[in-house]
């Protein structure tokens, strides 16, 4: 299968040039003429657009001739780097369908689809998927399908787009095609043209020894590659190890909504690249350059929008929804002229297995909800809580915005009583005496019964006034003593009680030790929610 992008030099510019031309011609003009030209000392027209073509501008004309034909014409020098990037993006997309893709520079690629037909539901659906995908990237493409790569390429150049499935059908079609379509050596083509030999069929009918002597053995081998007599190995296309794409915007954009629309194109390329390399992205950076301002006037640096994901992902919908929520929070200091998308961290993401039964899709490994919330509300807004093996209540938990599931085992209840603690219940009303003698915070045995803990903890214990402390003292139940932390400067000696207040709430209160017991201040530390 071959894909030819005949209008590539024109299409890498199409939006930007169309805008400038429309401004020059005034509103209401259907499409102003413009043309891509070579950058040589003597530039000539390389690709005129439709309006220019209608005005008589043709490929190969001098600029002066073109200007005479269409006075309003705009010229743009060809940008081969952008063409190569666009071709690579298409090749990355085609890698979704087959692992064997190779580029035919400057504006074509060939791919082996034979092994992919069944997986993608037959030839018609596969071809449709390919055509739709390339069209969605804003490129005009000519597709041709043939048993050999060179044959497909020649057919695409000859505008023969009906698929050919076997060599018996292919041969008569190839025989009529001019030799120039086969990437043959131009000197050999010229030599043969001098003898009146211009098509593939005529060249193939010549005696092979003589042909090899005059045009070189490579030329004969080329003929054999086209019809499948010898193998045609090609260098496979491998997507680059790092992803970075740069999109100049057609008009400077103030509005993040419009920016999101353009950024979708970059995300599309990113999703293709991730799929082709079997990766998922963890962190992304969107660099919004305010170029004109940076260079000339005020020196506004580029705005950088960082995106982080809970787990590696490459689903376009997921990337897009996170980007949308994140862009809402961005304030642009100046209009954006160029948008660059760079990956900062990636991780391997294996392909998802489908279930055996319909509707039995594997569980998505990522958590898009958490990512969307973080993107909109800020990194630290979504917290995960975890219990730690520690006796001091305020240190027995941590809450952080840990990104990718460091799954904490359901922790052992902190401040659990040592075995036999109940037997220590003394006459002073203590049900348990917790004394930790060594600084190690070993996980406690899970089987130890735990004393109840409140569901709500106050961030800072609230002191209780003397009057109300008397009420607390009158209503307290049995105490739990927590005495720990002398080694790290946060020494804690407290007697905890559960107290039901007159209005029905149940509080977790404690009394500190001043000199002995039962002589300290009262604090509320939590609520039994």
């Amino acid at each position, binding site marked *: 299968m071959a894909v030819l992008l005949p209008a590539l030099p024109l299409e890498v510019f199409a939006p930007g040039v169309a805008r400038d031309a429309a401004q020059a011609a005034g509103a209401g003009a259907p499409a102003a003429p413009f043309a891509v030209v070579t950058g040589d000392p003597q530039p000539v027209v390389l690709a005129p657009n439709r309006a220019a073509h209608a005005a008589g501008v043709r490929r190969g004309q001098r600029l002066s001739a073109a200007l005479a034909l269409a006075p309003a014409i705009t010229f743009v020098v060809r940008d081969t780097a952008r063409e190569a990037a666009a071709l690579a993006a298409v090749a990355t997309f085609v890698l979704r369908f087959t692992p064997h893709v190779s580029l035919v520079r400057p504006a074509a690629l060939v791919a082996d689809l034979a092994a992919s037909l069944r997986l993608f539901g037959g030839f018609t659906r596969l071809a449709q998927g390919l055509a739709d995908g390339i069209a969605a990237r804003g490129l005009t493409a000519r597709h041709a399908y043939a048993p050999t790569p060179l044959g497909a390429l020649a057919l695409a150049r000859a505008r023969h787009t009906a698929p050919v499935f076997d060599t018996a059908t292919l041969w008569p079609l190839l025989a009529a095609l001019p030799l120039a379509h086969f990437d043959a050596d131009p000197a050999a083509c010229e030599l043969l043209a001098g003898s009146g030999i211009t098509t593939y069929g005529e060249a193939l009918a010549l005696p092979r020894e003589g042909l090899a002597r005059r045009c070189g053995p490579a030329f004969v081998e080329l003929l054999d590659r086209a019809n499948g007599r010898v193998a045609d190995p090609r260098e496979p296309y491998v997507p680059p190890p790092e992803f970075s794409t740069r999109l100049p915007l057609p008009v400077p954009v103030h509005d993040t909504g419009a920016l999101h629309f353009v950024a979708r194109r970059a995300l599309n390329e990113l999703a293709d690249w991730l799929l082709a390399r079997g990766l998922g992205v963890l962190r992304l950076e969107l660099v919004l350059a305010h170029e004109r301002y940076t260079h000339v006037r005020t020196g506004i640096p580029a705005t950088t929008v960082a995106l982080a994901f809970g787990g590696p992902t490459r689903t376009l919908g997921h990337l897009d929804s996170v980007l949308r929520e994140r862009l809402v929070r961005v304030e642009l200091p100046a209009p954006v002229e160029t948008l660059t998308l760079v990956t900062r961290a990636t991780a391997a993401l294996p392909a998802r297995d489908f279930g055996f039964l319909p509707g039995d899709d594997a569980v998505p490994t990522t958590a*898009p*909800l958490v990512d*969307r919330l973080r993107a909109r509300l800020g990194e630290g807004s979504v917290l995960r809580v975890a219990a730690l093996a520690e006796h001091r*209540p305020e240190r027995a938990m941590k809450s952080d915005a840990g990104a990718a599931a460091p799954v904490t085992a359901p922790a052992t*209840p*902190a401040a659990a009583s040592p075995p036999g603690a109940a037997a220590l219940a003394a006459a002073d009303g203590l049900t348990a005496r917790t004394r930790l003698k060594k600084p190690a915070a070993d996980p406690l045995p899970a089987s130890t019964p735990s004393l109840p*803990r409140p569901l709500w903890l106050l961030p800072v214990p609230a002191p209780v006034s003397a009057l109300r402390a008397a009420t607390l003292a009158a209503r307290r139940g049995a105490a739990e003593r927590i005495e720990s932390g002398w080694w790290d400067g946060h020494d804690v000696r407290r007697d905890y009680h559960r107290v039901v207040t007159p*209005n029905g709430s149940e509080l977790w209160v404690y009394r500190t030790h001043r000199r002995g017991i039962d002589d300290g201040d009262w604090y509320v530390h939590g609520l039994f929610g």
Partner: protein
Amino acid sequence: MGTGFVHGNGSSAQAALAAVLANPAIWRGRDCAPEPAALATGFGALDAALPGRGWPRAALTEIVLEREGIGEVRLTLPALATLQRDAAQRKRDVVWIAPPYTPYAPALAAAGVDLARLFVVQCATPQEALWAYEQALRAAECGAAFAWLATDDARALRRLAVAAREGRTFGVLWRRPGVAARAATAALRLRLAPADGRLAVHVDKRRGGELAQPLVVDVDRAHAHRAGLAILPRTASRPAPADAPSLPFPTAPAQWAASA
């Protein structure tokens, strides 16, 4: 009534009547709406009072309470633990939006909640909280979403109810009293009050007949689901003197307190 017209034995008439009443189009006053995928609460008395014998899994539930600390969250924890352990379900995450205090991890872990699947969202403004709650209710991986919101906006509440229905999420909206007089968009509205060391649950609205008497639930005595987990002993509380001064109840965050 009506048996006078039926000549024959009574049991066949009853069977015929039962067959007629089995028609789903027939609805009687004391019936509850069918709730095929209810989530067992873990409390027998409460299960019996709710349509489908459990929390509605795809609807919003309003729980109205005067103040925290009466065992309100413990009423829902058995259901959360069940939900998170249900391997057949894809929706197993639990999201808490704008809780009034810090949820204390050791207590949650002791109640059987899987902390790796619990997310606490803190919001700067009520609008953000509303947005986050709607997203959570609609999310494909979120099985239960709780929010402590102070909104009275009927349109916002309606939106949340629709989000819970469409996202098939067990949503709980914790509210202050004062909303009880207004029409509820939620499928279920409970009012909680402390009742001598236990929790009185008034079912103000359910999809079914009216329930005049409050249920009294001991929130520390959930059954069934916590095999292997110790049931916490409850300390006895002394009766309150009638004229005791009110205790320094900690001030709640402003947006939550502003609802009353």
